[in-house]
């Protein structure tokens, strides 16, 4: 079992009747910045937040999406022929396929199946725990040799709690190190049962001010901070990730408040400063949506280093870019 096999497993497009089921949009082998060592990173679909800077915009919706990569399109027009709802968009002369009308698209997958060039993709496959076990077993030796393991990321993995719990239990059954990357905007009752199966939590602190947080991510940070402190109480190891977004959350006051929070939590093992990148732009184009931060530049090296230094005052292990 391999993710490349699964990409063209058309059965995995349909919601299965087995439980627990997981909707996953990517499985990356040799992930190297998400929890230490060589890891396999499973990206869950669906997220309760909608951060302006999201670098995986295809992860946000709780259902499948469709994307169009223009560079790959060979203009064979087969998609136009097979689409039952005329959702394929063309340019004004009707010569070139330019995208997919998401209002019309019913995600039936007909165009995807016929798109041999790989320009059209349905984002999101239904995976079973057995599928995951088969995938991670492939790289088990690499995890052992490098101190790596498996990371559940997204999107928001805790948003599919039944599947995540079963997956975590299976991974622990294999003796693998487990990491979960979560935004923590999830009811404690939903989060708590998962925690005993997690070796490392990766969580973002995006902004300390509830209103600003709301403006940047679509939700207030109250639940997030409450969960963060609860987890500290339980002593579960956490790496805190700080997305550093130029002009939006990089003011000293906010960063200092974040550092103070971290200083108060003994379970924080390290801090990863993640400088804003514009990688989300391409994916937004492919999804046919607009990118909110088109004019925002990545932070300067000096600003990134200053931020890292600030956090070095409260944590021993501070990286730029993750570990």
């Amino acid at each position, binding site marked *: 079992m391999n993710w490349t096999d699964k990409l063209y497993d058309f059965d995995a497009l349909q919601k299965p009747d087995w439980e627990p089921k997981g909707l996953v949009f990517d499985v990356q082998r040799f992930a190297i910045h998400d929890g*230490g060592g060589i890891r396999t990173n499973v990206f869950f679909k669906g997220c309760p937040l909608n951060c302006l800077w999201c670098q995986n915009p295809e992860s946000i919706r709780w259902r499948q999406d469709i994307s169009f990569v223009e560079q790959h399109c060979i203009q064979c027009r087969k998609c136009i022929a097979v689409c039952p709802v005329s959702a394929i968009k063309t340019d004004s002369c009707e010569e070139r396929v330019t995208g997919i009308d998401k209002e019309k698209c019913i995600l039936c997958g007909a165009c995807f199946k016929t798109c041999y060039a790989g320009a059209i993709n349905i984002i999101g496959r239904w995976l079973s725990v057995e599928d995951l076990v088969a995938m991670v077993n492939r790289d088990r030796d690499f995890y052992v040799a490098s101190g790596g393991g498996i990371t559940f990321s997204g999107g928001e993995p805790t948003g599919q709690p039944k599947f995540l719990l079963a997956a975590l239990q299976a991974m622990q059954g294999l003796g693998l190190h487990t990491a979960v990357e979560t935004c923590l905007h999830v009811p404690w009752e939903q989060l708590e049962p998962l925690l005993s199966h997690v070796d490392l939590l990766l969580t973002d602190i995006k902004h300390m001010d509830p209103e600003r947080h709301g403006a940047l991510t679509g939700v207030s940070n109250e639940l997030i901070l409450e969960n963060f402190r609860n987890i500290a109480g339980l002593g579960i190891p956490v790496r805190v*990730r700080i997305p550093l977004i130029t002009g939006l959350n990089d003011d000293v006051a906010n960063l200092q408040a974040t550092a103070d929070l971290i200083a108060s939590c003994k379970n924080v093992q390290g801090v990863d400063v993640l400088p804003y990148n514009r990688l989300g732009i391409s*994916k937004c184009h492919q999804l046919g949506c607009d990118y909110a931060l088109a004019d925002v530049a990545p932070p300067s090296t000096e600003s990134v280093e200053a931020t890292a230094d600030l956090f070095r005052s409260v944590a021993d292990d501070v990286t730029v870019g993750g570990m």
Partner: protein
Amino acid sequence: MSQKQTVQINSAVADHGPSDRVEQVKARFLTYTPEVCPERARLITESYKETEALPMHLRRAKALEKVLAGMSIFIEDDELIVGNQCSKPRSTPIFPEFSCQWLEDELDRLAKRQADVFLISEETKAILRDEVFPYWAGKTNQEYATSLMTPEALDAQGAGVFTVGNYYFNGVGHISVDYKKVLEKGLEGIVAEADAAKASLDCADPEDMKKRQFLDAVIISNKAVIAFANRFADEAERLAAGADAARKAELLEVARICRKVPAQPAEGLQEALQSFWFVQLVIQIESNGHSISPMRMDQYLYPYYAADKENLGAEKVQELMDLLWIKMAGINKVRDENSTQAFGGYPMFQNIIVGGVDRHGEDATNELSLVMMQATANTALYAPSLSVRIHEGTPTLFWKKAAEVARLGLGMPAWYNDRVIVPALLSRGLSLEDARDYGIIGCVEPQVGGKTEGWHDAAFFSMSKVLELALNNGYDPMGKAQLGPQTGSVEDFKTFDDVVAAYQKQMEYFVKLLCHSDNAVDLAHAKNVPLPFLSGMVEDCIGRGKSVQEGGAIYNFTGPQGVGVANVGDSLAAIKKFCFDEQVVSLPELKAAMDKDFEGAEELRQMLVNRAPKYGNDDDYADEVAVMATDIYCAEVEKYRNPRKGIFQPGLYPVSANVPLGSVVAATPDGRKCGQPLADGVSPQGGFDVSGPTATVCSVAKLDHTVASNGTLLNQKFSPDSLAGEDGLQKLIAVTDTFFKRGGFHVQYNVVSRKVLEDAQANPDNYRGLVVRVAGYSAFFTVLDKSIQNDIISRTEQVA
């Protein structure tokens, strides 16, 4: 029972960067443009004219004697290790006795061609045209070898099924002499050995009469090298007279050393390095074979280092080693224009390997192992080639040093797996102790030094062309001629097994022609170009009274390389899946599309590219087919024997022959278009490895690397950020270690540079697997918008 004494290794000995002297010598080195030097060609031609009545062994020895006595020598400022190959640094001698028609044809293009340019003066051209070429017409080794080949074999070579060009046009090289013996006994010791062997001959025995010729040749050539070293002593003394005090002392020391070695046993590190260098150098003046590989230098130089290290100090040791490295980079040879495609970048493949186990199975790492890795980091040149051996007991400090050098992006060291290579050599008849003592010749070819004539680079064989012929009933669609046996047309194939059977039959036919051609060239070398100086340093040539070319060595092999593992695997996997398992396209339909180079069938081609399983992604469907197709090649090669009473053994690496061999293969069922390069070594086809490095090494480890005992080659790309920091080193080590535990043979790492990313931007189809690795993010580089790609490209420049 181990006889190794435990020596504490101080890794700090290898922490020294390049000295000012090294920086200066290197800066000067980089200013030189390769040129053609006419001296050797002129001298050897004169010598051959003088010796026409003599037996070939003596003619060869006298020719070497004349060249070494008559060629220009020089010592450059700041040099401590001396000895030059040509009248100018980085220039190339000419070896007309091997072949020279190509040179005559290409003389005016040498300075103008695309790759591996050599300047050539009008004066040199005139010498070659007037004095050299006329004599050699009809007398070269190449012409003799051709006369031994069947028309079918020549046709197959012409069509690009295989090429034996390397040894056909050049010397064989690909050897590691007994440097230890030279250091311990000196060349006078070898002369004495030859004298003793002569004394035991029966002068009336016809066989012994032949041996006497060879032994006389050994003696003449060794004495000629001793005289050559003395010329440098004279020159150093001459220069010393006009030098300032500091340089004068250095030059007088150089003079003292050159009077002593390589004639006598070496004492101390500088004497050992100088003795080594004269031998290494003269082997590359005697013959134009490349891949003269020093192999386990950290082992045989260690006693001289250990005795001298307190006296010299670590910085001086490093400086001497760095200077030797630059000397090695200065060796050069000119190849014909076609061969520069297969051997691009002035490579000489002088392979040095450090680490591994000793003859008793104990870890052999020592401080010199680390110093030699540091020398590669300090000099940062394309040569010499540096390799490392890995075994269960490889110490952490060795792993780390090797990983640190690897991430500099030089493509070195190459990593080798004792766990696979020792058993592979055992299975080819080496003793256990000899197998443990292996080193690497040239690119990736293992053997034990000082007693092997491995003929490792015997040919490049296009497995992909063979599959093409199997799908064309033996007809060559590119050359438009019936080339192979009729093994059925695509309309006749009812099952996938029928396709494989046709491939197998074509393979049998062409591997036989391949081995025939190699043996023709082999016989020619024995007759025309025996190498007495080289042979005196290879066991058991003196004892047997035979040159290595005639079978004087203890171990004899011939190793032709299969090229196109991934293409054949991916092609057969696509046929199996689409034409037979799923029947979405018939084989004749597929073949018709291929015949038109997929013109008007781009959808089909995209299906082949994107929907067929691909070797290199840890996908068993594709990998099993690749393994099967490769095994068929390997099993055929193993059936044959060479004239030196040795066996053929297969390898799977291309140097860069995947490019020229690909240029004569039409479109293939993996979606590759006509004329595109074949895949490199056992690496996946570029752009098809979309599952990351762990998947790639899992796939590659499925091949039988023990059977491919002439060597396999995996190139793996890493982005610089994935190797950053202490954690990055651990990841590189973990990938290597796991690959080797699973049965890998060789791997080398290329750090993705700005240049690669720019190429990926321009040619996205070749880089579909190139991943942008950012925390919590996953995407392929080639699907990003151009502006974002540019961001990443500019960032990469900062990191690397």
